[in-house]
């Protein structure tokens, strides 16, 4: 008997010890796993692109880079891309600010409609605007024929207009978010003290908004130079980096030159990302007075209101007309040529299948993304290990990386064993997970900062182990962040094109890719119909998700767009 006891004792001890070890180190283990995931699915693909761009058939070489800078074509492409990025960012920020100012400070009657209009493009693929511009202003477009407009749509200006319309909502959303959280009392006091509206905006609103504007600018810039749908459809022979990269990889299997273009594309993004991080440190404003209170709308002086309204209405009208055109095109045979009403585009079976696939991929991505995002936020805020800020930086960097580069990186990194993912659904979901991770992580971090660590400490003091505390205290408190990450990932994944276009395999076509192909190909009817179906489905999904979360009593205020 005694013998048996001594045999059992160390064993239970061991189990106990492992248990204790896990319990004590769980957060570090978690951190290690998460870091490994980030390294494999975010850093490694980018590294693969970098390597490919300097590796020729005979060892390492810089010849591809030399070619890039010698050939006027490529340099022109870089110049166009950057110009496009800057123009777009500036315009989007101005329009976004005007709209956000009106919806948060302007007349009450205007707030709701403006908000809905400016959110509309968010649920549609960005190249919807290329389609509607062709319908309206193409060489045989409705407006062209009606008014004899001599605007050459195919080229730089066409791309700028389409991209601007597509990314206004992004700028709007982020600026509006910050504007809402600003305490209007500050502005009101200034107003009461007799400052003019212009002066208030210049000296109070904009400086306080700076972090939000900066971030919106960064995001719009990166999205503009990486999103190639509009440029590929409307660019004609004007070269841009993203569509050229796409053409080189997909059309020519010229991976070396494609990688060089990717690296060139990524450099401005990284510079801006670091600039943004650097400028934000020590610039975190807290407006005094805690929670913002809903204030009576102040009367805005016509001097400000009229230009703001003018800008907002022009943009709003353009967005509405674009959607109307696409809606009309999806129900007519060939809009503008043969306006017979047909349902063939809507009933196109292939595009329905593609939409189903898109929903699948987006659900998977949203679930994984929300889980990883929540865990990452927890590790970043509560962990006490070396390299915490490094993990934070990497997990937030995803949105500063152009989708095309990630797509090519995944193609290069995961086509061969040991990690062979191409040809499956996971590779489509995973690249979106890691690109759109930032939102979930940020939502989680800000949520956790609101929760006092004492609650968790109390729980463990009362004898609960780490798992119990995490499950019973942390998870419920973080649920809104989880939902925010879920919804954001879902919505962005379902309309995103720039990365997945490199990764789709036969039999698993995605709606976004189908629309792009149809639009490039000239099948405006199918492209429009698929877009419309996608928009409707995204709206339905949003309503269901909202309903579920409301029903189950979770307050969610999804901080979309960040």
């Amino acid at each position: 008997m005694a013998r048996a006891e001594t045999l059992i004792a160390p064993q239970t001890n061991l189990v106990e010890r492992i248990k204790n070890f896990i319990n004590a180190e769980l957060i570090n283990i978690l951190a290690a796993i998460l870091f490994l995931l980030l390294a494999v699915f975010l850093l490694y693909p980018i590294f693969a692109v970098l390597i490919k761009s300097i590796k020729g058939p005979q060892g390492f070489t810089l010849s591809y880079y030399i070619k890039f800078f010698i050939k006027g074509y490529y340099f022109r492409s870089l110049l166009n891309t950057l110009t496009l990025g800057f123009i777009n960012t500036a315009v989007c920020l101005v329009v976004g600010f005007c709209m956000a100012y009106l919806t948060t400070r302007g007349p009450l009657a205007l707030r709701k409609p403006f908000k809905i209009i400016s959110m509309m493009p968010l649920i549609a693929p960005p190249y919807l605007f290329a389609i509607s511009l062709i319908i309206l202003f193409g060489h045989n477009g409705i407006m062209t024929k009606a008014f004899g407009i001599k605007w050459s749509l195919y080229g730089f200006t066409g791309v700028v207009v389409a991209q601007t319309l597509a990314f206004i909502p992004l700028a709007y959303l982020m600026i509006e978010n910050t504007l809402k959280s600003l305490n209007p009392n500050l502005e009101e006091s200034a107003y009461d003290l007799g400052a003019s509206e212009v002066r208030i905006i210049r000296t109070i609103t904009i400086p306080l908004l700076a972090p939000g504007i900066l971030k919106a600018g960064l995001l719009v810039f990166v999205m503009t130079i990486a999103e190639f749908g509009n440029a590929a459809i409307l660019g004609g022979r004007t070269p841009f980096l993203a569509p050229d990269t796409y053409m080189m990889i997909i059309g020519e299997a010229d991976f070396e030159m494609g990688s060089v273009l990717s690296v060139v594309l990524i450099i401005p993004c990284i510079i801006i990302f670091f600039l943004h991080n650097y400028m934000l440190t020590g610039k975190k404003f807290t407006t005094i007075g805690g929670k913002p209170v809903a204030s009576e709308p102040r009367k805005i002086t016509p001097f400000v209101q009229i230009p703001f309204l003018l800008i907002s209405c022009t943009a709003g009208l353009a967005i509405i007309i674009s959607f109307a055109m696409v809606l009309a095109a999806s129900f007519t045979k060939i809009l503008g040529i043969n306006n017979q009403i047909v349902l063939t585009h809507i009933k196109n079976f292939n595009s329905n299948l593609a939409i189903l696939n898109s929903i699948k991929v987006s659900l998977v991505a949203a679930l994984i993304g929300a889980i990883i995002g929540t865990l990452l936020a927890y590790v970043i805020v509560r962990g006490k290990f070396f390299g915490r800020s490094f993990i934070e930086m990497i997990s937030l960097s995803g949105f500063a990386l152009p989708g095309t580069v990630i797509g090519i990186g995944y193609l290069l990194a995961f086509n061969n064993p040991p990690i062979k993912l191409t040809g499956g659904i996971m590779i489509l979901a995973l690249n979106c997970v890691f690109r759109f991770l930032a939102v979930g992580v940020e939502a989680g971090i800000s949520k956790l900062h609101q929760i006092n660590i004492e609650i968790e400490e109390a729980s463990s003091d009362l004898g609960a182990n780490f798992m119990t505390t995490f499950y019973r205290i942390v998870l419920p408190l973080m649920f809104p962040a989880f939902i925010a990450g879920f919804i954001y990932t879902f919505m962005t994944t379902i309309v995103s094109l720039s990365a997945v276009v490199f990764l789709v395999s036969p039999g698993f076509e995605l709606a976004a890719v189908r629309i792009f192909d149809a639009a490039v190909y000239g099948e405006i009817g199918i492209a429009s119909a698929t877009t419309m179906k996608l928009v409707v489905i995204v709206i339905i999904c949003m309503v269901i998700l909202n309903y579920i979360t409301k029903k189950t009593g979770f307050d969610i205020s999804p901080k979309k767009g960040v």
Partner: protein
Amino acid sequence: MKGRFALVVLVSILFTAIMMSDGYAQTVRVYMGLSPENNVKVVDFVKAKTGIQILQTFQSFGEIEAKVKSEAPNFNADMVTGCGSPLAFMSKKNKWAVPYDSPAWKGISSEFADPDRYWFNMSNFTFVLVGNKDKFKEKGYTLPKSWKELLDPKWKDQIVMPNPLSSGTANMMRYTFLALYGEEEGWKFMEALDKNIHHYTRSGNAPTDLVGRGEFLLGITSHENVKKRMDEGYPLIWSIPDEGTGYDGTFAFIFPGTKMMDACKKVIDAFGTQEFSKMMAELGYVTPRPAPNALFGDKSLKYVKLDLGWAADNRPKWNDIWKEKFRTEAK
């Protein structure tokens, strides 16, 4: 707590329901480069004939070639059903195809079936000039009778043609011009033509739609969709200039390492039947087994003399020259 449980259950039910919703009896994944509509026709034909479901996404010939090259030897598909001659010959050479002595392809000429049975040419297609009838009337233009007429400055920025890097149709055009005028003169012709081209499209059928919608006046395009678009009511006219046109095949072959070998073989067999030739001819293709052609009728086409095998070997060189000539300065 209860609410959350309900939420979890709901979400997981939704999830499994959506994930379970696929699953065909027997499927093959293929790379397929006909026009999107004709892809679907072939898929439906194979499904009706053999019960095998083909899963495909539309890609241009050049894109399929790029994909196969980048994936080799780990292919993400089971076979190719519709690619250009360069990839077919390259695959035979590199053993990216497995030979199959299909009984259905007995007695078919070596233009359509590889003597060693590595590849099978489903049918030939060709390229034509298309113009927009309405716009021509407006301007008083007629379709050019000779390829050289395309160089007339009146067409400046009004012609669209596909890009030979990504499109098999354009690869065939390029080779045809080189074969017609000789290498040196051929390149000179294309450089002169380039001045009138608005832009090069990704796929070989795109010019048909662009011209049909009146975006551009004239297109050099694959014949594949021309008849269909005319039937649909697009104001299109087409012609082949007097010097003749070129052709290329739409090739099928099986990738080594496929797990669906039997199904792939059945698909190849289906392509060898008279019914398949009949269907393809109705779409305007020139088929392995003779069948009445819907687009060209009894007219036998005038072809420029081509050697597809030789052209396939020269494709990389010509691609480099093309990039060198047309991708140096932005227009």
